[in-house]
Structures are given as structure tokens and as C-alpha cells.
């Protein structure tokens, strides 16, 4: 993980210059918080992967289904790649703005995740942030299936020394940001999955000419009734694999 120091000019540059060599050994970083956040996601990933493995070995997957849809992360990443950068105010940190430069779906084992390239800015203070994210499916029966980025950790990648009080305050404010509020500020991916299955076709009409003997003919207007019907797709189960999402659905009128 890239470690950047904040580009803020210290309030007391002369003092800092004099004491820097001494205080350097007392530099503070968020490395521990970053590692803890990373480890927490990996712990979750190991549990999720074990669970998937157990399900496979016990033959409890796949469920009985009518429709199986698999969508790889690759096309969704093509879409995310075209999203461009965007920004939003950091909740709870006055004047701070988060910049999301890129989002990309990925996976730790079978745990769906995302790599997020992001930074936070407040006045002259600017820092990259590590955002640990997992994907959570939203499978409400009355809405198209969607994937939401759930933020598990939000850690500025910062180092500062004991005299950089403004930075210190900034970092602690960022570390205190409520991650569920950040979740609501990341995009929602609405999957290209139908809620209904349309089958059949419209009524047809055509004219056919038949011979009726000698030189005579008869034109018949043939009417084929509509066979169109819609059935409802109901998602029964979802399974994340390292390269994409499987949805298993029942289909009924």
C-alpha cells in the first residue's frame, strides 16, 4: 500500500526543523490500522471461502432452480472503468472531500471485494485512503438485483510527527468516520438481470393462397393467436465465485 505523507506546511516550521531529527523516531502512521483492516477482510474472505467449499462438498449447491445466471466481474469492470472519478463530502469531517478515482471488482477467495483508489482532501491537507470494501447483493423481489459496495474500513494512509497537530486532528477525524455512511456514498451496480421472463410471440396474421382445383385458387387469411406469456423470476440463491456472481432463480407465472 502506498504511503504518502501529508503535504501540509507545519504550523511551526522552525521548531519542527530543529526537533525533526529527534521527533522523527516518534513519527505516527496509520500502518497498523491499515494492516488491521486488511486482515479483517482476509479473515472474512477465509470464512466465506470455507463456507463455499463446505457447501460444494456437501452437495448443497447449486439449489434446485429453473434459471441459472452467471455474470463475470469482467464486463462489470468494463462499466466501472468508464465511470470516471467522482467526489463527495466525507461524512462527519467538515470541509473534507473524498475523491474516488477508480473502482474495480475483485475477489479474495470467494469473498467479492473491490479495489478502490481514493484520496481525501481538506484545505491543504491531502492523503490517500485505503478503503476496504466487500460487495453485498441486494435481492429484493420487487427490484432488479444489484450489488452494493459495503465499506468495512476507511483508513487514511498518512504519517505525521508529534508537532503536526492539524494533521493529527485530521487523521483522527478520518479514522472516526462511520463506515456505514460511506457505504451510502459509493455507487450501486444494478445488474442486467430481468425480473420477468417473457416467452412466446405476438399474434400473427398472413395470407396463404391454395389451389382449389382446375385454375381456381383461394386466399386464406391465417391467424395464429398470441403465445406471449410472462413469468416471474425469483432469485433463490446467490453464490460468489472468484471471477463472478452466480444467481439461481425460480421461474413461475
Amino acid at each position, binding site marked *: 500500500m502506498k504511503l504518502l505523507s501529508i503535504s501540509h506546511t507545519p504550523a511551526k516550521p522552525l521548531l519542527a526543523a530543529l526537533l525533526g531529527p529527534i521527533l522523527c*523516531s516518534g513519527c505516527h502512521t496509520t500502518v497498523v490500522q491499515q494492516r488491521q483492516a486488511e*486482515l479483517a477482510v482476509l479473515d472474512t474472505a477465509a470464512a466465506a471461502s470455507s463456507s463455499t467449499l463446505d457447501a460444494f462438498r456437501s452437495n448443497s449447491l447449486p439449489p434446485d432452480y429453473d434459471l441459472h445466471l452467471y*455474470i463475470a466481474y469482467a464486463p462489470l469492470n*468494463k462499466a466501472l472503468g468508464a465511470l470516471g472519478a467522482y467526489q463527495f*463530502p466525507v461524512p462527519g469531517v467538515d470541509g473534507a472531500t473524498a475523491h474516488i478515482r477508480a473502482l474495480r471488482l475483485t475477489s479474495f477467495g470467494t469473498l467479492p471485494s473491490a479495489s478502490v483508489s481514493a484520496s481525501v482532501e481538506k484545505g491543504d491537507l491531502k492523503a490517500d485512503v485505503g478503503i476496504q470494501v466487500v460487495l453485498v447483493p441486494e435481492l429484493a423481489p420487487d427490484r432488479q438485483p444489484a450489488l452494493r459496495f459495503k465499506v468495512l474500513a476507511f483508513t487514511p494512509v498518512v504519517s505525521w510527527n508529534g508537532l503536526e497537530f492539524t494533521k493529527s486532528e485530521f487523521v483522527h477525524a478520518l479514522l472516526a468516520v462511520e463506515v456505514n455512511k460511506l457505504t451510502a456514498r459509493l455507487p450501486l451496480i444494478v445488474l442486467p438481470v430481468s425480473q420477468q421472463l417473457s416467452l412466446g410471440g405476438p399474434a400473427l396474421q398472413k395470407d396463404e393462397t391454395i389451389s382449389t382445383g382446375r385454375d381456381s385458387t383461394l386466399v386464406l*387469411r*391465417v391467424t395464429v393467436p398470441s403465445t406471449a406469456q410472462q413469468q416471474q423470476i425469483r432469485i433463490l440463491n446467490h453464490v460468489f465465485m472468484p471471477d463472478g456472481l452466480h444467481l439461481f432463480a425460480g421461474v413461475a407465472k
Partner: protein
Amino acid sequence: MSVRAAAAIGIIGLLSGGCTAIAVSDLDRRIAERKAEIRQLTTDVLAAAPPAFRTTRDVEIELRYRPLQAWLSSVSSPPLVIAADGVKAAGDVVYQGGVGKAWLEPAHDTRVRLAIRDLVLTPQAGALMWTASAQANAETRVRTYIFNVGSNVHCSGALPTVQPRGSFSVGQVQAMKLPYTMRFSIPGELQVSVRCGLGQLGSFGLGFPIGKIADSVSTGSIDLGIETAARIQLPAEAGGRLYVFRFSAQDAVVSMTDRALAVETNVGVAVE
């Protein structure tokens, strides 16, 4: 700040820095262990995955035949009735010099009805077939002019119940749907006939070829459960913009097994 205070800060810094380094080192070791564990689990998961989870394309769809069978049962109960009604008749159907002639009039009195019931899928590897039960009847009106006397006669006929068979002819994936035509294959030359007694003109028979009238039972499309667009919605705090991405099938492969219709395809993604 006295020299003593600065030294104290330095020592505290050194000590806390040392503690941090130990903590980071421990976390790095645990992270490495977890990553190795996850790599092994991933290998195991892929090895244990049932066939449904072994994928190679961007989008893979398996539609089992239950919904298709439910649809066919529904559209053929009550029976699916294909109607053919005369709209224009031309020429004499019978002509005997010195006796008279006969022709169909009015054209709309000619009616053919084919009632199809009990549509049942009979899937096979590589093909999707169907069977049904069908009945047909026909009627027509023949106007005669015999020895300068005009008359007309109504004639009808029926086909006893037959068991037609046919196949689904499927095309290439279009807009994430599979176009199809349900065609009759057997019996191909089936006819429903009417026979009319025309007095001095003798007997007149007319056969309506079912295969020509009803060359397809149904033409339409089968949804694959996938739409042509994905959407990405930014939250209101970030502007709320909605991005729409058009998905298009590329190099789609359609296959039929004895229990499901399957489509595997890569997809192109375009910003709308």
C-alpha cells in the same frame, strides 16, 4: 523545550515506534498466512465446484425446461386454435361443358380451424422437439350453376385427432433473447378435407394442407433472464448521476441438453 524534555520525547518515540514495528510485523505475518490460506481455499473451491460453477465466458445462462413446459401447457390449454378464413376465391373449382360449373362463394364461408392441445416438450441433446394433440375441421360453401339453375351447398369435414410433432428452430441471440419458430415436422402432408356432392357435377373434394396453413405454431422469442443494460447509480451526495451500460452478446453459443437450454457468451459493454 529543555534538552531533557526533548530526550524524553525521543525515547518515548523510539519505544512506541518499536512497539508499532512489532505490531506491524505480527500483522504482516498473519496477513501472509491468511493470503496463503485463501489461495489454497480458492484452489480447493474451484476443484470441488459442480459443473454449473465452471465458467469460461462473461455471461452464462442455463434455462431449464420447466418454465418452457409451463408456458407450452398454458398456451395449449384451452387449445391453441389456428384459424384460416377465406378472403378471396377466384376461378371455378368444377366446370363441365354443357352441364354447369361450381365455385367457392362467398369466400368467407370457407373456414379451417386447427386446435392444438397438450403441447409437450421432448428435449433431446442438441435439439428441442415438441409433441401435441391436434384436431382440425374445415367447411366451405360451393355455389353451383347446373343446367341454368343456381344453387349452393355447404360442405364440411374433420380430421380425427392426430399427434403432430415438431421442433423449435432457434436463431442467434439478439438483444439477449433467443428467437424461435415452432415448426411442424410430422406429419408434413397432413390435410383436412371437405367433400361436397354437387349433383350432376359429381363430387368435389377439397383438401386444406395443415402444414401450409400452420407452417409455424408460434414464432417469438425466449427471454434469457439477462437484460441489455446494466446501470450504475451514483449516490445523491456524489451528484446522483445514472450511468447506463449497454451489454451486447459476442460470439454467443447456444446449446440444448436433455434438461436445459444454455447460452454462453462474452459481452461487449458500451456507455449509453
